[in-house]
């Protein structure tokens, strides 16, 4: 399968999709861990995708989102941001609001 198609499928099939280093239970990078923790804290059911398992995916997701870093969070097919944005949104209560509006929590 083309990698782009694989990315599209992941985003289409999972309401909350986190491209990360490591897994939700064992993040391999502080930034991925921070976003994972925020999602867990908000009781979000999310799909973690470990880009360290697939170098091709790791490079292509950066192009797909036009975003140079991992983690990357998608909610209902929309790119929400990386670690800094997610943390800021969480601290301001905006993330919870967005997830509620999108009927995730």
């Amino acid at each position, binding site marked *: 399968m083309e990698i782009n198609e694989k990315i599209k499928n992941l985003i289409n099939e999972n309401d909350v999709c986190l491209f990360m280093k490591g897994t939700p239970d064992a993040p391999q990078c502080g*930034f991925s861990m921070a976003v994972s923790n925020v999602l867990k804290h908000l009781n979000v059911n999310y799909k973690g995708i470990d880009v360290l398992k697939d170098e091709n995916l790791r490079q292509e997701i*950066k192009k797909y989102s*036009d*975003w*140079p*870093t*991992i983690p990357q969070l998608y909610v209902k097919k929309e*790119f*929400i*941001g*990386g*670690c*800094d*944005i997610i943390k*800021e*949104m969480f601290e301001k209560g905006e993330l919870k609001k967005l997830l509620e509006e999108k009927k995730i929590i």
Partner: protein
Amino acid sequence: MPLPLEEIKKLIKDSIPDASIEIKDLMGDNNHYAATIKSSKFNNLTKIEQHKLVYKSLKGKMGNELHALSITTEGK
């Protein structure tokens, strides 16, 4: 490959001339930074667009030479 703080500042300043930039070297290793950047260029942009402007100014170094740069952006 570490990137000195002054060089990061210069790169951002080159493409966002009115930026006020504060950067902290979090671990003293030229590799883990936190930057707060204020610019009128950010006015009326989404956070994603604001951060993309900063990433663009770093000319592909983000995620490569530059491993860890936390960004906080604000309009002015």
